[in-house]
């Protein structure tokens, strides 16, 4: 938001502004501030709901400031094995992203080399997977047949390459001048050396974006783990949170557990706290990679 505000201010020295100009700037600030409020309010509301007493939230008394602040909801979430699940999630995210990036680069690079005779054929084959998938049951059978059931690899290997991301990387690689690679070849570099010493370092912006894409998808994913992981201590965080949430709602409806008692934790505060716990790590990481993020996506798309 502040970035946009600055661009409005910048032309001021060129066009000497009178009163109308100040009004315009003030109006702009107000408008942008309002838009910022609209964007941030839902997130803010989620935070204050998560730390308020469930009874007050239920009556609709929480809208500007938290009421009867309590950390009971978070205590409920953080009891049990949550640290194990967090550790698992971090492990799956880090390892998974590493495998993703390595595999995607190894796939993307040959597809940009004009000297690779089957390039068109493989590109077509890869593109097909963008449009057609095997479906849930064949995937399950494949994972089982490869003996990946209940192992961390069942979460990493089947999705080692996201075709979409790989194509972005390929486009970024292809945008490098051929002469650069040819000169490396003249100096005696082989393909692996060219990839790791020239192509990858020059595509840092795109790759950082891909790291973010892959990491976020690993962090948020629960479905694969739900299907393939059977040992509870191997669950990622998202399964646990999702289960808490869904079970909370279902139990209230199905069991009709209403005994008429007052509790500080309700389904609504639970929902809010779960959202905070699951998105906070990504929210923290985002600003640091954001600058790469914008340039990276542009490189991939504009020149593609």
């Amino acid at each position: 938001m502040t970035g946009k505000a600055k661009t409005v201010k910048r032309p001021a020295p060129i066009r000497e502004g009178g009163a109308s100009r100040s009004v315009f700037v003030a109006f702009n600030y107000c408008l942008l501030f309002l838009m910022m409020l609209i964007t941030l309010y839902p997130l803010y509301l989620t935070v204050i709901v998560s730390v308020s007493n469930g009874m007050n939230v239920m009556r609709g008394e929480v809208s500007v400031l938290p009421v009867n602040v309590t950390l009971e909801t978070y205590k409920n979430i953080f009891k049990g094995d949550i640290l194990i699940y967090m550790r698992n999630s971090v492990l799956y995210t880090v390892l998974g992203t590493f495998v993703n990036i390595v595999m995607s680069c190894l796939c993307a690079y040959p597809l940009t080399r004009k000297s690779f005779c089957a390039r068109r054929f493989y590109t077509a084959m890869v593109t097909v997977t963008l449009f057609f998938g095997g479906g849930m049951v064949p995937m399950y059978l494949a994972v089982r047949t490869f003996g990946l059931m209940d192992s961390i690899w069942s979460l990493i290997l089947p999705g080692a390459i996201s075709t979409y991301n790989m194509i972005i990387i390929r486009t970024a690689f292809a945008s490098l001048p051929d002469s650069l690679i040819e000169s490396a070849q003249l100096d005696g570099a082989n393909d692996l050396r060219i990839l790791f010493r020239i192509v990858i370092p020059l595509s840092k912006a795109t790759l950082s974006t891909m790291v973010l894409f892959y990491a976020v998808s690993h962090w948020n994913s629960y479905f694969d783990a739900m299907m393939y992981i059977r040992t509870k201590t191997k669950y990622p965080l998202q399964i646990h949170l999702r289960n808490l949430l869904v079970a909370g709602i279902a139990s209230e409806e199905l069991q009709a557990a209403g005994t008429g008692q007052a509790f500080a934790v309700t389904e609504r505060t639970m929902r809010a706290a779960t959202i905070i716990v699951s998105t906070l790590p990504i929210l923290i990481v985002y600003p640091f990679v954001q600058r790469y993020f914008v340039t990276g996506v542009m490189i991939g798309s504009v020149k593609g």
Partner: protein
Amino acid sequence: MKKALALLLALVMLLTAAAFAENPSTWLTDELTEITVMRGENALQPLKADTIKLQTIEALLNVKLVVEAPPSSNYNDIKTSRINSNDMPDIMLVSTSDVRNFARKGMFVNLSEYRDELPNLFALLDANPSLSMLTVDGDFYSAPTLQRLNRFVRRSGNLFNFRTDLLEKYGLEAPATFDDLYEAMLTIKAGEPDMVGLTCRSGTRKFMDRVSYPLGSGSSMYYDADKGEQWYYGPAHEEFKGVLEYLNKLYEADLLDHDYATNSKDQWAQKLSNGTAMGTIDNDGVVRNYVAPLKEIDPSYNLEVLPVPANSLGEKRIELASADWTDQHWVIATSSDKIDLCLKFLDWCYSEEGAIVNGYGKEGVTFDFDENGDAIVKPELLEEYSANPANAAYDIQIALGVGLNDVSPYVDTGVQMQMEIYLKGDAQAQAEYLDMVSKIGPMEGNREPVLAPPLNEEQTERYAELLLKVENLVWQEVDKYITGEEPIDNWDSVIESIKDEAAEMEEIYNTAWATALGK
């Protein structure tokens, strides 16, 4: 002589040894055997591997239950994949639609073929003829989750909840008819102009599902015991006009929440818990959660279940939720290599002993029988697990490994209910709670729900086709009549446009109904 004596001695020793080696009569199998069972796990009640219940089952039956419990939030996908890839555990929990989809494909053991080996199960199934609606082509492929009734059983349903303190304040009687309700709400509204009358949640369709039946019709296909004991497609009949007319009357007088079509669950909860709404027809258990925040505002406020008022046809009727869990079925996989043992085990679960072990654990350790023969949980256990009241009913069931959320095909909810009662504190509060709860089930006008008849493949397809067509026509019109945009008499044109399809749907249902009942 010595030789004969030695032989005799040897014989005696052999017989004694044989007598001692004989297995307990309760064992289902001579060798300790594992049975794998899969069910969804409720996050509030994680299943443990070595509970007192599992130990009791092992000692009693010589069967070791290995329970696989993926999270219930995505149990559906996991279950479908496992069935489709023929990678099933011996016994698993599935839904009615799974039974209908996969039984015909031969994935589940046909229990009716083993009727003689399942005396306990079939005694219960035969005792309740409406359960025959859960058959596929006339046979049971699944054992539905049934409830063993105990004296603490609490019934619930989409019942009529109303602010009784307001009735008292304005000197009104509990409304005997829906017209009385209209008058009563008018009186209250005159004194409390800011209040909305009846509120609801989750859109017009859900609202109509809840109010149409008490008001004399049904929002979709429904069984009408007052009108020839047949199935009807509600909106295609004259009575539905009466429902719309009444709701329009409420709407015009500002006695029906004007956000009735858009209220989310949170908004609905807010209106009930901050005292804005006068009442709602909804799940009484859920509504009871809003009594505590309401009483925080003013202790005299109260939201209670009242007997349903009589509709314009003079009928008092409202549907209770089923006492059984008819959408939770236990099936045995045909791919299992120990079908016989699974059958024996499943049948044991439906015996009195099975229900008690699955519901309470081990006699003398976790519970005792009182003089009436009711299982009573040990008081020290209730005290131990009541530390966190919000989750106490689950905590005790986690520890014992019992209850609906565990492997309990014949559910006794005694532990949960006894904990709820215990949490109420002193004897008087406990007695009041028990009294309140026990009054809800037998309330005047309460009807037991009727299960939809099982359709064969051809009927299923045709019915779905017809339903899609009429639902599209009906549900884009309903709001116009409630808000008064269209005069009520125009509903005749809607009836006219769907009457052929509705008649065919009714015929499909009534035919299937008669077939299932063996008429």
